[in-house]
């Protein structure tokens, strides 16, 4: 028979005594269960499944769709000997370096500083327009830029003509550069927002004290702003590197990886093999390698976070 006894330190249910502390542990677990179950179902199981089928010759269609078999490391061996795979890796690295590191980060960081400290930039107009680029859907961004970079009548070429220069074949002669520009345009807001909020959190008193000590603006930046922003900077690096490494939509819709593979980032390579060639096993193997690279990058960054720079400063 059900019985419930409650006192200050314990609760007795079915004649069993539970301490309140123990019960709160149970209830914590209980509250986490739905989230854990969803994570398991939609993140961990699919990722695990991708790893499993990366060791098979499973295809979406054809004879290997129904009767596929385990082929060990064959997909991985094939990947490592595929020059197109190495090409896509190389392009991905250039894309990440150019658009995430140089572009999104440096521009986003600078913008955040300018927004806070410079009097001549209108915060709402600049901040708003950068933010706008970030919130519009990827495909919409692609169409906007396709019309900007369009050879015949795009505004980029109209500007070149107005300057007395010749039209440029953006998507043919400089496809990767064009994509990097689009991605910078789109992603700058992220770093800007992160850095802006971190800047707000730096106490003004620190700057005041430095000013009393006669520190120049530059020294304040080097010795106060930068050290206090280092976690934000690293976090922003990790997130934008991973995000950019897995960019697919912009590239796929804009150039399809072309011309002749010159802008084929790893995401497009995976799509082409897994879905266009229907070799889902092979495509999964490439995804697993991509996952490993992302993990490795994250580990490198995390090590940097642990370094305590403030002692050097």
């Amino acid at each position: 028979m059900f019985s419930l006894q409650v006192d200050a330190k314990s609760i007795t249910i079915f004649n069993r005594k539970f301490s309140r502390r123990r019960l709160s542990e149970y209830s914590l677990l209980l509250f986490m269960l739905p989230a854990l179950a969803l994570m398991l179902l939609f993140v961990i199981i699919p990722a695990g499944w991708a790893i499993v089928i990366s060791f098979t010759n499973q295809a979406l269609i054809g004879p290997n769709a129904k009767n596929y078999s385990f082929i060990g490391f064959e997909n991985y061996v094939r990947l490592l000997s595929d020059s197109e795979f190495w090409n896509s890796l190389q392009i991905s690295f250039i894309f990440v370096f150019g658009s995430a590191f140089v572009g999104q980060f440096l521009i986003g960081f600078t913008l955040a500083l300018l927004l806070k400290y410079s009097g001549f930039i209108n915060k709402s107009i600049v901040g708003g327009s950068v933010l706008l680029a970030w919130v519009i859907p990827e495909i919409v961004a692609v169409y906007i830029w396709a019309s900007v970079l369009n050879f015949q009548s795009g505004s980029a070429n109209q500007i070149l003509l107005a300057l007395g220069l010749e039209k440029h074949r953006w998507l043919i002669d400089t496809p990767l550069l064009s994509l990097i520009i689009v991605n910078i345009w789109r992603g700058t807001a992220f770093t800007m927002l992160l850095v802006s909020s971190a800047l707000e959190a730096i106490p003004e008193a620190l700057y005041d004290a430095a000013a009393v000590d006669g520190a120049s603006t530059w020294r304040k930046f080097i010795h106060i702003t930068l050290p206090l922003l280092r976690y934000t900077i690293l976090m922003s690096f990790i997130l934008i590197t991973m995000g950019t490494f897995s960019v697919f939509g912009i590239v796929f819709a804009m150039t399809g990886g072309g011309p002749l593979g010159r802008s084929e980032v790893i995401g497009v390579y995976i799509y082409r093999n897994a879905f266009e060639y229907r070799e889902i096993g092979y495509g999964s193997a490439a995804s697993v390698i991509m996952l490993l690279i992302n993990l490795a990058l994250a580990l490198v960054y995390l090590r940097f976070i642990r370094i305590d720079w403030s002692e050097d400063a």
Partner: protein
Amino acid sequence: MLKARKFIALGLIVLLMGVLLGGATLIAQEDGELTISFPGDPRSETVNSLIEQFIAMKAEEGVTVNVVINEPTEGYNDQLLLDFSAGVGPDVFSISAETIPEYVAAELITPLDDYVAEWDGWAQFPQGMKDMPALNGSVYAIMYNTDTRVLFYRTDILEAAGVEMPFAPASWDDVFAAAEAVQANVEDVIPMEVEAGTIWGEGTTMDGFFMLFRGAGGQLLDPEDGKWVVESPALLDAFAFYERMFGDGLSAAEPFMEPEPWVFYLQEGLANGDVAMAVAVNVVWGLYAPDGPWGIENRDEVLSWTPMPAISAGEGINGQDFVSMGGGWGWAMSSTTENPELAWEFIQFMSSADSITQYTQGVGGIPTRLDASVDDDHVAAITEQVMPYQSFRPLSVDYNRVSEQIQIATERIMLGEATAQEAMELFAEAVINIVGEDNVKRLPLD
């Protein structure tokens, strides 16, 4: 102890979720259920209206049919394949004829031979419509949509260029002569467009390359020995057409590298008179109708078409003077359906003379049945003048990948990175990588 209980609790929750999901599937499997997949494009409106008529017809017979419709607007084939591989494939699906071999190899599609043998409607399908969905002597789909390709041209531009009207080219040289006249005499007009490059995808192979290749008498997959022909005079001729077209500035490469090349070339270029000639699928005629989505107000005065000539008279495939490529969509039954009788009844309904007439009128296409009457001069003319020259793409599980190599070859030529000869050599190399040295052959070049 505590750990074990945690696991039990977790296990119970997962089990509960499983039961809920499973229960939902069981309920959905009741009798009279039909899942139907087809591409969600402008044509699907007519398909939807026909499905409603089918449901109404069955309701009159006292049978309630619960129809689940899948009509993805993008990546139809990918979506369909993923549904199948996840075990939730449809009962009936629309299939583009050239993909049938892949579905057969994956055992996803049911042969319809026994069904058509007892169906009087089958006799109303012309031979081409019976051959297109057939593989190894079995029929796998009933065609409800077919198309063909011709050379469209702007009468006003060609006239201004001094080309004699009506334009009736009998060889590639005639086509080039007209293009050169436009180049010389009309400013700011791209003389011609033949689809090229990877971005236009299968359109490049089907509407562009094959229209040239068949005109040079080419066979890509030899039906005799089942080998891919990776080097042949016809292949070189077709690639040389591209080389001359781009090399002489008779077409422009840039629009082909934009995300949606058809917008510039067909939707705007031909419609606005920025492009003088374009090889294109017949259905664009309907799109250019004054009230159509790409409307040209005075379409009948400024736009016309002519069958695509072979390289020279009698040199086309089967000794033809003119060539065209036919494609199309059919209704197929999946091998996983639990309700084949109802599925066949649906396919039969969708393929009746009345349904095909409604469909063809709705989408402005060419009827697949002889007894489907369509009251349209353009369709009548195209059926009479072009359909006899139709040929089809090779049926093979490897077609998709070989086709991509064709697109890459045209892209190389278009960007000036390979001559026709070099592009053919790279093509041969790539196809050997796909199908193996034993499955290709080379024909002597003269």
